[in-house]
């Protein structure tokens, strides 16, 4: 009890909690869940974009796309490492993902259907992620806050790159413009759902707020994203869905009700690509097992040799 009060006091003073510090079990567990979910999203997120690597239309775009996916693998690595400071191994976290026990951002269960999706994922999905993550750069857990700072910087870069790619396509042929519109139409709504269920349905929120693991509500962040994104879509020259309207009174865009039934359906595995994502992860894990074993065996032999010497 006393520890708990002191812990909360530290958080209230905006101090960082570090790995060796005492922390409540709930805080640790919530962080592990959140951080690993975030790491898993980076990893699974490689696949929808990876779908276009071999078909990128120019050398420049191919290089940009590879570099972006590489950054995602890097983010996954930081975040797993940050989570490991909480006393859980990367192997265990990966096991949870593959066993279907852990979640990842459900937007990756939608397929990438045309080349504009690659730009739109940068613009909308990375954009939503950043909106979510910027507040986490001030999260109370030190390793997470520091990882987020780095991740956000790179994701802002991706977001601008994605947007720039779409700007270029909008200068192209009608077919290219249509691809951009189609990508926007498909990905915008799932991107809004990346902020999670409406505040009215969201569990744990107040405790996480108090712990400064979460600093704004889902709906607040979602609104912030919509307000930033719609003018960008207009600047691109896209047709904006009818239900989105500027509200002079509130100074925000109204966007109506989201289709939460679809959200839960996709979370539960009913998206077009859920199985493809997990199959791809499982294949990579299984096909690579002998390589990981060889590397471990080799390292062991080297250790034994240097000990003997």
């Amino acid at each position, binding site marked *: 009890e006393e520890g708990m009060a002191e812990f909360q006091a530290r958080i209230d003073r905006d101090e960082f909690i570090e790995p060796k510090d005492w922390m409540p079990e709930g805080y640790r567990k919530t962080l592990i869940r959140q951080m690993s979910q975030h790491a898993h999203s980076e990893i699974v997120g490689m696949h929808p974009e990876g779908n276009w690597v071999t078909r990128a239309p120019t050398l420049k775009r191919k290089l940009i796309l590879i570099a972006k996916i*590489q950054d995602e693998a890097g983010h996954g690595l930081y975040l797993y490492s940050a989570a490991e400071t909480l006393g859980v191994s990367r192997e265990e976290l990966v096991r949870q993902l593959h066993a279907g026990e852990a979640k990842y951002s459900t937007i990756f269960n939608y397929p990438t259907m045309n080349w504009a999706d690659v730009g739109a994922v940068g613009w909308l999905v990375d954009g939503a992620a950043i909106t979510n993550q910027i507040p986490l750069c001030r999260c109370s857990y030190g390793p997470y806050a520091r990882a987020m700072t780095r991740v956000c910087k790179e994701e802002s870069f991706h977001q601008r790159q994605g947007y720039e790619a779409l700007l270029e396509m909008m200068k192209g042929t009608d077919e290219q413009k249509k691809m951009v519109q189609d990508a926007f139409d498909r990905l915008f709504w799932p991107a809004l759902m990346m902020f999670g269920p409406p505040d009215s349905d969201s569990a744990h929120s107040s405790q996480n707020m108090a712990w400064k693991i979460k600093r704004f509500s889902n709906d607040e962040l979602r609104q912030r994203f919509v307000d930033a994104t719609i003018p960008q879509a207009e600047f691109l020259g896209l047709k904006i869905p009818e239900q989105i309207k500027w509200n002079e009174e509130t100074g925000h865009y109204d966007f109506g009700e989201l289709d939460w039934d679809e959200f839960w359906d996709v979370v539960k595995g009913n998206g077009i690509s859920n199985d493809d994502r997990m199959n791809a992860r499982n294949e990579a894990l299984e096909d690579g097992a002998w390589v990981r*074993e060889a590397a471990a065996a080799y390292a062991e032999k080297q250790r034994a040799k240097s000990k003997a010497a």
Partner: protein
Amino acid sequence: MTSIYTNGDNPHFQYVLGLGDDALILGHRWSEWLSKGPNLELDIAASNLALDLIGQADLWLSYAAELQGEGKSSDDLAYLRDTHDFRCHWLTEQPNTDWGLSTARMLMFSVYQYIRYERLVNSSDERIAEIAKKALKEVTYHRRFATEWTMRLGLGTDESNRRLQKGFDTLWRFVPELFETTAWEQELADKGIAVASKDIEAEWTEVISAILAEADITMADTAGKRVIGSRHDGHHTEHLGHILAEMQFLQRAYPTAQGATW
């Protein structure tokens, strides 16, 4: 017998094109590993290799386009030629059957590229020298990476040794082609522009055999083996056509979209 697709007109262009195609196709093969690697660290490593190689391809192909003098871009060369106009070595085209084969190929090819670039740094063509110099730094890392993984797999477990050996065994047959030297390549070499491929075979064999001996991998004797067909006549393994079908889809399907708008 020469082929209808032989182009001996502009050897300087053909030579640089070959350097670019090697980097492009091998880079493409590495890009296929993305998100499929044995772990995240190797996903990242594969991306690095792909980025370096495709970056080199862009430089070589841009210069090749200049030498060709038809106002084309590196993208035009990458995306709008069919197999018979590609000049990459057959080794680069082979599919990634597993990490063992990809490692074996990378050892073979990075040592080859390293030796080529190391000499091209002194090319009398300054543009070639400049690109080779930049690329040499990257390939130095590739060679180290491939060597380290050859050791890990060769000396790791029985299975990894077997798989790496199988990778090498699948690929030996493409080694003699690396050292085929056309008359025009020899002429370019005599002018100090190019490296005659046959001149680097001895060094390649020496380097590779030393590494493989240490890694407990058996080396095949490929010296003097005849090469049937030639990349300079547009001859390739059947894999290249499938790579291009995928790689070139968007440029082919949307021919009126200009490069800059992608």
